[in-house]
């Protein structure tokens, strides 16, 4: 029960705008849960409510089954990095971790451990004001790991990182989850989570759009789509359309076919004498799957747009 972050019917309104609307999901142990949505979808607000920083208008957020505000040494229950730049620039990295450790009575030895874990070693004695974004992210990670918590939460951890940093972060998230921790990671770019997340919670305009395993989502998005390459596009399209398929031209010599299996397409084209240079089952990227999902969200947004004053 310790390693879960659970949100039930969460709602938050800032003046006339509803930031989070009846949101429910669970980030379970042993997996990386991606928390995805466009900017302003309510991801950060939700995370603040999980940490008891913002008060929800309705609903509950539980960390390891308890409200965050009731935790006595919360750094040992949930490690979080909300904003990597939230460090006093004149304070040395190690001192920043030190006061945090003191606040929860953690031993100073733990500070040196997380400095090593986050790969801060050489920079620990430097003032945080001179840190690059990447170094700040590492300091934020170190702070989150201070209490060795079973649940972790990162708000846009790869935002602004270079490719090397993104790879490091992805590996770290995976290894933290592999130890049996619950890891909740937000991003506004689905691509950033490619190969990083096991599970996805997608929100738009504060509402839940999807709560699904990455595997299922990709399968659903790829299902029944076949990519075909042929110089005789027009003839191919006619032949396949006659057989009841939906055919979309995607390039000068490329079409996407849905509604027919690969075998059937090959049979049909061979029968019609249409030559083709390539045929493959489509493997959707996470980005595409996301677009697929948010297609509905766009319609949904249009509706709520009219309702809202």
């Amino acid at each position, binding site marked *: 029960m310790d390693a879960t972050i659970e949100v039930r019917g969460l709602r938050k309104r800032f003046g006339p705008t509803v930031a989070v609307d009846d949101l429910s999901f669970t980030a379970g142990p042993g997996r990386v849960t991606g928390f995805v949505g466009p900017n302003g979808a309510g991801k950060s607000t939700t995370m603040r409510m999980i940490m008891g920083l913002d008060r929800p208008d309705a609903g509950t957020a539980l960390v390891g089954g308890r409200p965050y505000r009731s935790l006595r040494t919360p750094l*040992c229950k949930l490690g979080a990095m909300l904003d990597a730049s939230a460090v006093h620039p004149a304070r040395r990295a190690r001192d920043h971790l030190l006061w945090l450790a003191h606040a929860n009575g953690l031993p100073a030895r733990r500070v040196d451990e997380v400095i090593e874990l986050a790969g801060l070693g050489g920079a620990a004695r430097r003032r945080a004001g001179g840190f690059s974004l990447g170094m700040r992210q590492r300091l934020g990670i170190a702070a989150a790991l201070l209490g060795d918590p079973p649940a972790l939460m990162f708000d846009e951890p790869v935002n602004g990182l270079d490719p090397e940093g993104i790879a490091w972060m992805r590996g770290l998230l995976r290894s933290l989850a592999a130890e049996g921790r619950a890891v909740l990671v937000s991003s506004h770019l689905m691509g950033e989570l490619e190969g990083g997340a*096991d*599970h996805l919670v997608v929100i738009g305009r504060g509402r839940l759009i999807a709560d699904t395993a990455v595997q299922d989502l990709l399968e659903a998005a790829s299902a029944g789509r076949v990519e075909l390459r042929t110089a005789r596009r027009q003839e191919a399209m006619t032949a396949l359309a006659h057989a009841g398929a939906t055919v979309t031209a995607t390039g000068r010599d490329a079409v996407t076919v849905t509604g027919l299996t690969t075998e059937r397409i090959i049979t049909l084209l061979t029968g019609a004498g249409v030559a083709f240079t390539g045929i493959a089952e489509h493997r959707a990227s996470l980005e595409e799957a996301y677009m697929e999902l948010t297609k509905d969200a766009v319609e949904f947004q249009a509706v709520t747009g009219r309702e809202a004053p």
Partner: protein
Amino acid sequence: MTPAKPAGAATAEPYRSTVQAEARDGFGRLLIAEWTKLRTVPRWTLTLLAAVLITVVVALLTAAGTESSGSGDRPVDSARRQIIDLGHYTYLPLGGDGSVVARVTSQQGGGGWAKAGLMIRGSAERATPYAALMVTPGHGVRLQTGYKGDGAGGGAGSAPRWLKLTRAGATVTGYESADGRGWRRVGSVRLKGLPPSALAGMFVAAPDETKVRRMFGGESVDGQPSVTRATFDHVSASPAPPGAQWRDRASPGGPAADPSMDGRTQAGGTFTLTGSGDVGPNEFADDTTRTTLTGVLIGQAAIVALAVLFVTSEYRRGMLRTTFAATPRRGRVLAAKAVVAGLAAMAAGLAAAFGAVLLAAPLQRSNGLSPPSLADGAVLRAVLGTAALLAVVAVFTVAVAVIVRRSAPAITVVLMVLLLPQIVATGLPLSAARWLERLTPAAGFAIQQTVVRFDRAIGPWTGFGVLCAYAAAAMAAALWLVRKRDT
């Protein structure tokens, strides 16, 4: 929507924190955490140091710029400068225990605090221990001692009045009567250092008539001696010293006193005493201690800036979220912040106040002034009070900073309420100025006063209490807001 499927959850055991067992919460930990925050920003520690330096430097500059124009070659003891011992005194020697009785038949001139009555004192020297029982036109019968105003008694009762003053050991007791038969006890005082052979007799005294004119940047005080005259009869001293003559205390102003302002006439058993000048505190004495500690007015600006930044830097950078994430009990966080800021300010205040008084002393001595002595209770109170004052100012500032959340407005507000009343007061009529210095947080600076001056607005502890009340109110508002607000 697919239901949540625990992908990979089966492969790993739920994680348990390895340091959970060592973690502790508690207010002490919070204090250490907040202190760590304070000491690890170098410019904040420098600011504390600056507060100390500024205060001491101002004290040195003030001491260097003040000179005594008196003719004496030895510095005058500051305690003696703060009293007035004038008026006219006619006495007999009193060996050991005994008493003196007289009737004040009439009293003219000198205002409501003109004094006519009996006095037992150690000697004719200035500033000896004494007990005086007197009638006043405006404040009834009073028993006064120790060169302090007021005294026991009060109520109605003016001339004609019978008075009796009795010495038994170190205790002197005063009685009054309307007819010389039924006596009412007014009060009694113990006089430390009253010699076995003392003086007993009659005295008159009257405070100077003063006019205070104030304008921005200065004030002028005009003093006009006011004369009082009183007649006494049925004068007797017991035991009557054989062959002793009534003698007059030499006028402190010099031998050639104007007889219309000072003197004694005697007709049979009736004495008429004329005198001017008061017996009591010198309301126009310089408060050297307070002057020496003036620097904290400027030094406190550094403390205020520090206490504001200690709070607002967290608001500005979103660091407060990290703070509240580590300690969700916000009230405790704020309390810890206030305590740490207060203690740091107090430490700086102690260094500044003791530094100012001790380092300015040699300069003051070489300029012919007597430096404030830490052996004097009032001086020690002013010095320690200055540290306490800075501590409370820091707590008040932390609270205001939490309410306002931005540096510039918070610093402005705090310095305005602390300094503005004191600046504006110098340009206001005395009565208005007093109210300003009573009702605003600036009242806290009263803790520095060691002399009861004419322009005193509020007692040292009462004034300090006013500042504490402001700090408590601001803290209550800050606690309420910090719990209610989203971060």
